[in-house]
């Protein structure tokens, strides 16, 4: 890109730079603020004196977290859920996307099967029948409830994304495979899989983020706190409670538990895994998203 470098152009450059950096800072500041809060003293945090730098710096909140077995239990459940959920999603999406990316002439049922998927994405019977189903399968309190129910909800979107990616690959691939006499399994694994790395990285990232962040199903399908995934644990920690439904001793215990710096520290720790993982995957998923959704 060749452009003339007039003073006006330089000024525009500087202006742009300032705007871009400001916007970027707004994305980081809230996270910084949470960190600062978690490192401040509880009284300073409660009375709103903390802003950009810790007031009454201390690590109490973090030492308390280290002692909190429930927090680590939930953390571990979330890690397992993410691993199982992402792996299952990877395999099933790959298997579904290949046949569904055939043309209607190659695979007649494709159209109707696709619409069934869309139907599944949009319609649902509400939480109660879902709960009954999970219960009948004996999956209450099982990590599989989180993996399978959540996974089913995001499956369709991921399949559609991957199907689009496959359909944008050159047609010659198929023809070459046919000439070689390759069957569907062979072309899926030897031809399509290696080419599909970007889109599979993308849906895997989506799946990781979804399973890590989802909180409602933990609340519904887990009957005991010790089975809660991390976000559910955090969610119930930060919601407020109606005292009129409680007896006085319940209320007293609850009020002793409110602790803003500890909450901030837990939130910060919960953010860490995703913050560490995503920059490494970005190289792949940038291709994945764009190739999946945009036709050349």
């Amino acid at each position, binding site marked *: 890109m060749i452009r003339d470098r007039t003073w006006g152009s330089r000024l525009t450059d500087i202006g742009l730079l300032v705007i871009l950096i400001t916007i970027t800072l707004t994305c980081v500041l809230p996270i910084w603020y949470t960190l600062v809060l978690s490192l401040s003293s509880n009284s300073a945090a409660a009375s709103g004196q903390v802003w950009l730098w810790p007031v009454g710096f201390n690590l109490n909140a973090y030492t308390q977290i280290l002692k909190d077995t429930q927090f680590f239990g939930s953390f571990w459940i979330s890690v397992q859920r993410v691993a199982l959920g992402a792996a299952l999603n990877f395999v099933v999406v790959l298997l579904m996307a290949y046949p569904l990316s055939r043309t209607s002439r190659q695979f007649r049922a494709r159209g109707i099967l696709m619409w069934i998927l869309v139907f599944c994405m949009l319609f649902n019977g509400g939480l*109660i029948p*879902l709960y009954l*189903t999970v219960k009948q399968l004996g999956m209450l309190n099982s990590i599989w409830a989180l993996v399978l129910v959540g996974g089913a909800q995001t499956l369709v979107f991921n399949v559609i994304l991957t199907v689009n990616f496959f359909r944008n690959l050159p047609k010659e691939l198929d023809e070459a495979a046919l000439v070689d006499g390759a069957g569907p399994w062979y072309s899926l694994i030897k031809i399509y899989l290696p080419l599909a790395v970007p889109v599979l990285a993308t849906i895997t990232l989506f799946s990781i983020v979804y399973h890590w962040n989802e909180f409602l199903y933990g609340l519904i399908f887990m009957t005991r706190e010790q089975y809660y995934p991390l976000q559910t644990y955090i969610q119930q920690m930060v919601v407020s409670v109606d005292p009129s439904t409680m007896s006085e001793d319940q209320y007293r215990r609850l009020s002793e538990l409110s602790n803003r710096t500890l909450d901030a520290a837990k939130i910060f720790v919960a953010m860490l895994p995703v913050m560490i993982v995503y920059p490494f995957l970005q190289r792949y998923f940038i291709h994945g998203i764009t190739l999946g959704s945009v036709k050349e």
Partner: protein
Amino acid sequence: MRIKGFDKHYYLMLLPGYLWLIVFSIIPMFGIAISFQYFNPGKGIFGSDWAGLEHFRYMFVLKDTREVFVNTLIIAVLKIVTNLVVPLVFALMLNELRQMILKRWIQTVVYLPHFLSWVILGGIVLDIFSYNGPINQLGALLGFKPVLFFAQAELFPWLVVGSDVWKEFGFNTIIYLAALTGINPALYEAAGMDGAGRWRSLWHITLPGIQTTVVLLAVLSLGNVLNAGFDQIFNLYNPLVYSTGDIIDTWVYRTGLLNLQYELATAVGLLKSVIGFILISISYYLAYRLINYRIF
């Protein structure tokens, strides 16, 4: 072309995925029947008496239903539009930046919020906009009176849309940036030779170059017109802003699960699904007609 014998392999590939959906998506759809019943939990879905369309009739006279549909539409449409425009502008600005390392850094940092859950971000957002929070402290320095942002019904949709754009713009920027790199650099060179400045290049080369992407994203988002974001609003709202902030999904959750009005909640959920299905069909048709693109 169709190869005999391939179909059974295709079905085999599809089997795990469709089984998954049948169990966790299609079977629970039996729950839709609740909206046509006087649901008696003791008798179950198959033993309850039929109510015909009574709950639907009540739904249409109820002020709440209209309100939540309108709120959902307003918030969702605002989100769709701003989530198309803001990332576009940001991508165009970023594209003008010449410092490549800085560009990559900004790109990475701005989509960090996309990966964090609303459970976490909700807490942070409420904190920042609270009475003693940073925004009001900043305002106080400039001589403004403190404002209770999340108590103002007329502000709430904007805060929701604003925070959603803040969370998502970085991620959407990626799609535009990828489309921008797809534009042939020779076009810019030619324009430079002709003496065209930045603005004219932008207008005559860049924008037409990504036109298809914009249209495609717009069409695709049509399916989200009734999804205003349960997780986000659930973690941000309060009774003061129900009049503008209560959306279908939050209302259904509260009505069905917390207030024990299963039938009404299911009826509203069903209406939402039906409208969503119609909208998806429309966008499928539009995408095909306008830009000759098959969504799936």
